[in-house]
């Protein structure tokens, strides 16, 4: 029996290599086949490039440098969901099937267990995806015509970033060149700007965007037979706020300091006394997801918000009073420095928010004058339509705050949303799962995303296709770009309805 195990391992390795070899053979065949289409059949090709972590500020810098002709390119702030994390955010933007959690590491409340914890979760980032298996990857990947360049692409993306960027740009435009012969639209994905944002100074991210823009123009020049209309979109921003070693927060230590027990399951939590929470510790991001019982979510949030590394904490809440409870609204709270900074409710039927008057809205970056709101709509509560709330927070410290807060707690792109979400006070950030002797987590300190604040949350829509409002809610991208929605459907993606209140009447927004 002892000798059978290595033998089986050898057979499995050989089989794995053979499966890989199969893809290689077909890849070589298809990608050296000169297929030509009729330019008259698709004279215009709409190209959508999903650029992970491209911040609005990076594009604004390119605009200031004169790299984006204003008569051709329209730029808008694209406000990501909270928490602004890639897999969840792309799933919501593209209306793909929801993921279990915000990250690959998640808590499964149905079985009261953590999944993909530690090394397993990290390894999931580097494991080659195999269609139709447990290694298929998130559903939104199926929407991309091109999202990687080989089995080891994710690994190179984090360990050899310059090489990976060159390889990915080549692979992306090679795929586009071929597909443009027969397709009307193309959706490609580029990972490396996000990695650069984490691991390199801002100037290198700016340089990477310049390379991408240059490649777009070169591609256009190489292919005069068709007109290519480009749109770039991103899943979140990067705040370009570096973190020193003392700013990396260990989730368990944070909970301990807040007098909240860090546990691995609800069963373990119920065995002890006092509030408990299951922290999700995965990658270095500027938010932290905590799972706990609904009855103690407010108390966990309040205690955690007292910590100096924490900016805001979100929790679902009970109604403010009996009358409010009868209205069937969904209540939530924002905690700051140990007190409830905001107690609000969302009325799905009216697509509006009710805010308690005692909230310090200015401290939360809500500018009611911008939204044209009269502060006398209700005696106890201030009522804001979704559009008014969007405008009030558009230029604030926390863009689209109310929508992002209330939708973070609902299963739109995550089957198991957390009960408590922590937004760190930058430069503090979650340390994520630390790998001994790894330089990746030490290098990932130049910029972060995930938190509620503007730098982290504000991605970009940069388009030659259409005029854009100044700011766009990321959940509404497909409404603004119906060709992209159609392309996703054509690629076999079953578009999810998303949050029923996500729509914004951009035409009515000043």
């Amino acid at each position, binding site marked *: 029996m002892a000798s059978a195990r290595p033998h089986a391992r050898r057979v499995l390795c050989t089989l794995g290599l053979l499966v890989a070899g199969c893809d290689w053979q077909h890849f070589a065949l298809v990608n*050296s086949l*000169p*297929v030509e*289409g*009729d330019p008259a059949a698709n004279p215009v090709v709409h190209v959508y490039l999903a650029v992970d972590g491209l911040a609005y500020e990076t594009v604004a810098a390119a605009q200031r440098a004169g790299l984006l002709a204003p008569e051709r390119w329209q730029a808008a702030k694209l406000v990501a969901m909270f928490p602004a994390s890639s897999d969840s955010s792309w799933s919501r933007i593209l209306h793909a099937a929801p993921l279990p959690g915000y990250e690959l590491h998640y808590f499964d409340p149905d079985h009261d267990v953590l999944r993909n914890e530690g090394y397993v979760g990290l390894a999931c980032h580097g494991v080659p995806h195999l269609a139709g298996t447990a290694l298929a990857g998130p559903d939104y990947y199926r929407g991309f015509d091109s999202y990687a360049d080989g089995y080891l692409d994710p690994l190179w993306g984090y360990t050899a970033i310059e090489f990976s960027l060159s390889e990915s740009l080549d692979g992306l435009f*090679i795929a586009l060149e071929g597909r443009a012969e027969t397709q009307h639209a193309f959706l490609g994905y580029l990972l490396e700007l996000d990695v650069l944002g984490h691991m390199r100074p801002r100037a290198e991210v700016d340089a990477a965007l310049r390379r991408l823009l240059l490649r777009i123009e070169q591609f256009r020049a190489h292919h005069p037979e068709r007109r290519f209309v480009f749109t770039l979109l991103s899943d979140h921003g990067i705040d370009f706020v570096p973190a020193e070693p003392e700013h990396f927060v260990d989730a368990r230590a944070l909970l301990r300091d807040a007098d909240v027990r860090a546990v691995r399951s609800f069963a373990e939590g119920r065995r002890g006394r006092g509030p408990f929470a299951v922290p999700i510790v995965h990658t270095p991001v500027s938010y932290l997801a905590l799972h706990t019982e609904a009855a103690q979510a407010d108390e966990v949030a309040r205690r955690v918000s007292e910590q100096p590394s924490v900016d805001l904490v979100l929790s679902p809440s009970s109604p403010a009073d009996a009358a409010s409870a009868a209205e069937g609204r969904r209540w939530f709270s924002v905690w700051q420095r140990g007190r409830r900074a905001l107690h609000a409710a969302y009325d799905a039927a009216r697509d509006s928010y009710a805010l308690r008057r005692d909230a310090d809205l200015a401290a939360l970056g809500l500018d009611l004058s911008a939204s044209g709101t009269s502060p006398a709509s209700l005696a106890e509560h201030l009522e804001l339509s979704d559009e008014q709330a969007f405008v009030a927070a558009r230029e604030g410290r926390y863009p689209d705050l109310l929508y992002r807060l209330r939708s973070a707690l609902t299963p739109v792109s995550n089957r198991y949303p957390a009960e408590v979400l922590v937004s760190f006070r930058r430069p503090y950030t979650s340390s994520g799962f630390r790998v001994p002797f790894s330089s990746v987590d030490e290098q990932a300190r130049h910029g972060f995303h995930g938190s509620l604040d503007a730098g982290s949350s504000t991605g970009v829509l940069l388009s030659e296709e259409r005029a854009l409002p100044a700011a766009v809610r990321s959940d509404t991208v497909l409404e603004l770009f119906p060709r992209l929605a159609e392309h996703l459907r054509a690629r076999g993606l079953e578009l999810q309805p998303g949050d029923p209140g996500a729509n914004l009447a951009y035409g009515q927004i000043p």
Partner: protein
Amino acid sequence: MRPPDRQLHLRPWLGCGLVALAWASGAPGARAEPAATRPLPTLAANGLYPLWEGTGDVHGHGHGVVALRDVQLGLGGWGQLGSQPLEFVFRTPNAQLKLALWRGERWRWAMQVACYALLPGAGEAFFSPTYAATLRNQDFAVFALPLQLATSWRAAPWLQLHHTLTALTVAGQPPVQPRLTVGNFLTAELLALRHHGFYLHLGEVGAWAHELLILGASYRLRWGPVEGRVGYVYRRHAEGWQGQPLLDLGVRF
């Protein structure tokens, strides 16, 4: 009369045993074998990049190969029938017919015609979506018909050069337009030891249009009837470089 390398293949198990014996007794023993009785190094009957690369060699009658990439059978010493079985999994049925035009001591000439039918969906039919194909044909079929003239020249006992001239016709259902593309492929086969072959690959596709440049290197191991090949190729497209491994494993008979 069969060439010496074929005699080895007629007795695969004996060959396998001899290889094992030679391996066990150490390479010096093999090297000490008199040149006159030493079997000639075995030659490749296939290119590693079959759409554009071939050889002037054909399998002898009743001989052939069953491999990951190729299933081939020699017919009458003048030709061979073949197919790439794995491509069927990728919705690409295909077949090749290769004819020996001339076989001399140092030169061999062959012509091959093949047909690949990329059925709807073949462009993206990968096991892993990490490979982005340049073609997505969910609604239409594409047909590729390469006609190849290949020559192999034994420049030295340790060196063989293969050249393949390909005229590839690609046609299909709309929106694909019929198109003829010419390719040139040169392969240097270094037969360093009896069971080992090292290859350098250089291909150019598109003639004066220079659509594609293919560069690569590979290694082949022959172990009795078992033959394995592994290599890495780069393709230079108009929009940049793309690299990938290539792998083959099979049994010759």
